């Protein structure tokens, strides 16, 4: 009896399940690629599509009755935040490491800036309502992901004009849409961020590709990052959760081979597919040359990629690639073989030069690896502690001054203690050239309460972002893939917040006191001057003599020699 009723209930549930599934669709995908330097990049993406849903119109925020939220696959906790603050598009990434564009190429997910980066597109009829919702959403996400996103406050928030176009569509409500962007380079990503991240997945990490997300291995990878992307397309609202990592099999195995497999990279295998996923696919990019073996036998090979569908199989999957020989790093023999060409059209290095704590120079070196001229959109979102002197911008192309190569400068001035600077401009890189952009900066002197804990570490500055502008005659201008530079660390004049600091303060007070007294003694002389009226002649004469002893021009005789004059 019991068994029958259980069966019936489960049947009922599964039918509801199937019904709901029509509106919600969950797909998971993993793409793995061996890199030139022996490392392996794996990019997980988990996409949930909520069909026919539209973001909340901010004008309905005044009314409490929002539509009821019933989801089966779509993460409810996230949906509530999105509707509460009427977010149209949202991107959150938490990354660690430095993406090496030259040898790794462009990442699958372009947002690879170090630390935390959050940006949102919101509609609104007033700036204050947008700022309020921006504050709300970053606090809510901070709670959801256990990350210090609350510190992405006004001092880090900017609204760049061009660099972050919406990835999806923006609903036409007759309201302007605004972008809010903030990044925090010193935020570290760790297990406490991954756990809530996995909870947003319908199968958690119990089945499907998410099984592979082993924190011990993810957070040991050379580069790792997790991301959340919410965007709206006319077919519905899409939530994409992604994990990207670059592992080093040569470091993990210490065998000198670049072989990898699920087991070697993640210490796990995919035991079973996620039942609610409409597709579970793995793609492996096949190396261009050399002898290697991909196992198990791919189901499909297309465009240099091997595809596996993990959905219809109940075996444990351990996809991998093997090489017969040891991996060897490329070396360059003087002029015989030039170093490997970079995998991206242009390379960037960004440095803050200057050994002092009050001035410095922001220096950017861009190398165009192509024949064609490149146009780059350059964005700096700089906290006010580093202030630019725009009149000192110097642009050199192959050591020749070329001020014409920088154009379309837009600059939002920083407000000390309140707002960061936003600097956007277009740089033109002639083909096969190196462009040097430098600008003098001033480093701010902080109030002593503004120093963070571990004050002597300095301040992390967010990465700069370069976006190629693709311009062709018959098409409108479009943006290429964003390139993030590594973050910078700036030393500001910092007091020594420790016991000796107090000693220094105390000593300075004593010195000031002693100086005052000594100066007093050296410059002034105290003598007795009687002010009461003279009673007789002799008294007045005596007084006169006393006064005269002080005047320098006097040659009057003095009977005593004074000590220090």
């Amino acid at each position, binding site marked *: 009896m019991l068994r029958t009723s259980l069966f019936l209930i489960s049947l009922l549930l599964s039918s509801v399940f199937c019904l709901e599934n029509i509106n919600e669709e969950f797909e998971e995908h993993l793409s793995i690629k061996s890199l030139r330097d022996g490392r392996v990049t794996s990019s997980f993406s988990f996409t949930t599509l909520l069909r026919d849903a539209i973001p909340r119109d901010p004008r309905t925020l005044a009314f409490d009755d929002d539509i009821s939220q019933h989801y089966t696959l779509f993460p409810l906790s996230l949906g509530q935040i999105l509707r509460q603050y009427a977010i149209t598009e949202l991107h959150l990434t938490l990354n660690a490491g430095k993406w090496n564009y030259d040898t790794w190429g462009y990442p699958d997910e372009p947002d690879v800036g170090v630390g935390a980066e959050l940006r949102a597109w919101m509609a609104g009829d007033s700036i204050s309502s947008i700022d309020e919702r921006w504050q709300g959403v970053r606090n809510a996400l901070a709670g959801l992901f256990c990350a210090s996103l609350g510190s992405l406050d006004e001092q880090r928030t900017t609204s760049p004009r061009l660099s972050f176009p919406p990835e999806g569509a923006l609903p036409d409500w007759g309201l302007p849409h605004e972008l809010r962007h903030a990044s925090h380079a010193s935020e570290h990503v760790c297990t406490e961020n991954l756990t809530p991240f996995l909870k947003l997945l319908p199968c958690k990490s119990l089945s499907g590709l998410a099984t592979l997300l082993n924190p011990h291995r993810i957070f040991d990878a050379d580069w790792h990052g997790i991301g959340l992307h919410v965007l709206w397309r006319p077919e519905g609202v899409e939530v994409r959760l992604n994990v990207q990592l670059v592992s080093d099999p040569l470091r993990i195995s210490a065998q000198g081979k670049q072989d990898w497999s699920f087991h070697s990279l993640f210490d796990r295998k995919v035991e079973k597919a996620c039942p609610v996923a409409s597709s579970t696919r793995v793609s492996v990019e096949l190396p261009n040359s050399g002898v290697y073996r991909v196992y198990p036998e791919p189901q499909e090979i297309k465009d240099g990629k091997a595809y596996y569908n993990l959905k219809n199989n109940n075996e444990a999957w351990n996809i991998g690639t093997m090489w017969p020989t040891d991996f060897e790093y490329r*070396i360059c023999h003087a002029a015989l073989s030039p170093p490997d060409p970079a995998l991206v059209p242009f390379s960037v290095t960004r440095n803050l030069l200057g050994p002092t704590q009050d001035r410095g120079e922001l220096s950017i070196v861009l190398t165009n690896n192509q024949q064609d001229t490149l146009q780059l959109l350059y964005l700096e979102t700089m906290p006010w502690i580093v202030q630019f002197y725009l009149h000192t911008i110097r642009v050199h192309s192959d050591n020749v001054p070329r001020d014409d190569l920088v154009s379309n400068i837009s600059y939002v001035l920083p407000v000390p203690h309140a707002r960061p600077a936003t600097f956007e401009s277009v740089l033109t890189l002639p083909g096969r050239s190196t462009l040097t952009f430098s600008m003098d900066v001033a480093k701010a002197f902080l109030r002593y309460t503004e120093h963070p804990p571990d004050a002597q570490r300095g301040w992390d500055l967010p990465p700069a972002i370069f976006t190629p502008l693709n311009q062709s005659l018959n098409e409108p201008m479009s943006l290429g893939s964003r390139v993030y530079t590594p973050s910078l660390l700036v030393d500001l004049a910092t007091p020594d917040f420790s016991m000796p600091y107090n000693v220094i303060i105390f000593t300075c007070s004593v010195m000031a006191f002693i100086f005052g007294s000594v100066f007093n003694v050296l410059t002034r002389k105290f003598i007795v001057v009687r002010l009461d009226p003279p009673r007789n002649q002799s008294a007045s004469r005596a007084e006169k003599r006393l006064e005269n002893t002080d005047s320098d021009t006097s040659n009057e005789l003095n009977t005593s020699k*004074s000590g*220090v004059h």
Partner: protein
Amino acid sequence: MDGQGLRLQAFLRRFFRPAGDPNLARINRRRTMFSFIARRMTVLKLALFIAGYVWIFSVPSSQLDRGVYFDENALQPGQVNAYWNWKEVHDADHFLGELEILRDSNATSEQRSQFIMNEFLRIGLPASTQNYEFTGLSKGLNGTNVYAILRSPRVSGAEATIISASWISRVNEGDGTLNLRGVATVLALSRFVKQYSLWARDIIFIIGDGYMEGMQAWLSSYHGVTQSNLRAQPLELTSGVVWTALNIDYPGHSLSHLGIFHEGLNGRLPNQDLLNSFQYISRRTGVPVVLYDHKDELDLGWLPDNIRNHPEIKTYAAQARNLWRHVRYQASGRGSGVHGLFHQYRIDAFTIFAVPAAGPHGFHSLGRIIESTLRTTNNLLERLHASFFFYLLTSFDRFVKIGNYLPSVILISVAMMFGGLQVWVDAAWMERRLDKHEEGSTGMVWVRRRRPVLEAVSIVLGTHILGAACFFFLSHKWYQSLPFTSPLLWVAAYILPLAVPRFFPQNITDNIAPLSLVLKAFNLCLSSTVISIISVLNFSLAACLAVALGIPLSVASSSSNGAMGMVRYTMYIVLGFGWLLLDETRKQMIWDWDILGVWLLPFLCVVYYPLSLQAALVCII
């Protein structure tokens, strides 16, 4: 008890606020005090001098120093397992073999750097070379640095640590002994550290060409500092802010002790915590540590046995030897090695010097110690700070605190200041026999007289301008190319000031004080100020100045006998400018100033020589 307290209170009140007009009482009290000091000025001065010199010479004693301790808790030295093992030793031996082949084939620095760069690339580290060339005085000094950067996993690359070795070892201050084993250690280390993901910051490996100059070129480029006489290639690879650096020097075949060399350019010192961590780790690993390369005991054979074997004397001798070495490095401003170049960029650095010996240690112990020290600096959350920059190491594990060494020099400087003020006051007064017919005569009276301040100030300024001119000649290109320039300059510096008395003829009157007295007062006060200021920046230099100038300047006096005056004049000039005739010293100082920017040469010319010249002029005016 209570009654006693009240009585004391009453007494104090009577003393400080006597009956009557309090202002009058205060003025009188002050007068009494000043005249008390003034009357005993000579005794006081002498006491200060004696106390100062005794203090300076007792700094090496074991009574003034204390054991080292850690101030930065984040360091946690020696808390990790070292993984460096025989496989890495094998790597180092392999690299050493390759480097020896290069050495034997007389490879150029270009070939050498190419080879080292390829080794870095083979290990899997991005590597590059940097060509540099010095122009101007040291024309033709060039070379190629090679460096590699470990982009540590998981970190943003905003911070970095440096491990460096220069091609030429510091043996005899860079006499040309090659640092092959040091370079091999760096190569093996670079391969070793790449296997781990625990590094909190990037690690930069640099092999600097030459002894000091290569690293100077590299560091200038890295920090974007331009040096007018240096043409250095911009660095292709960069990383973040550097907090600490280790420089490895392993010239011998094996090592018995590890030596610490820590003095930087212009008297800078690294944070003491770094040195403390290293010596702690090294001793825990089983390798004895020494300061510098002082592994043998000082030979005191000339002393009687019972004095020589007294523990206090033995300690004093050993510590005095260490301190004397320290004073030479610090006062010369040159530092004691390649690590000294880092300090100007706020990088705490020191050299680990493998003291050459027949054994028993080698790559194995050295590697483990460096690994552990690297792990310790890896623990830092922030720059090494606190005020652990003021210390004198008397031994590798003992140091003198600033409070225990600074007063010695300050006392001498105070004595000079008092002397100067006394001369200044004396110059204003003259004792005169009283005319018979004046009433109330007591025989002698004091008369005021004018002090020729303007003349004295112009002489002081003139001497400094002359010093600056000497510096200009010394640092000029043709100074080196022409013969006999140094004796000529010396003679010029000797003869030119002799014209001063002609410009300031002395009219001996009772109304005007002699110029020599006022000049001496200015000279003493200025020297005292210079010494006290230098004492915080470069204690060794201040101590040398105090010893060289303290008594000599105080005893300068004009002589009625012309010949005697000239003898004294000559002695002061020799004291102030004698170093010019020491060929090696002068060349070294010019090189240091030109290549490394060491301040000693300009200091000697613009400050020290004029100070003794002023004293010399006191004798002949």
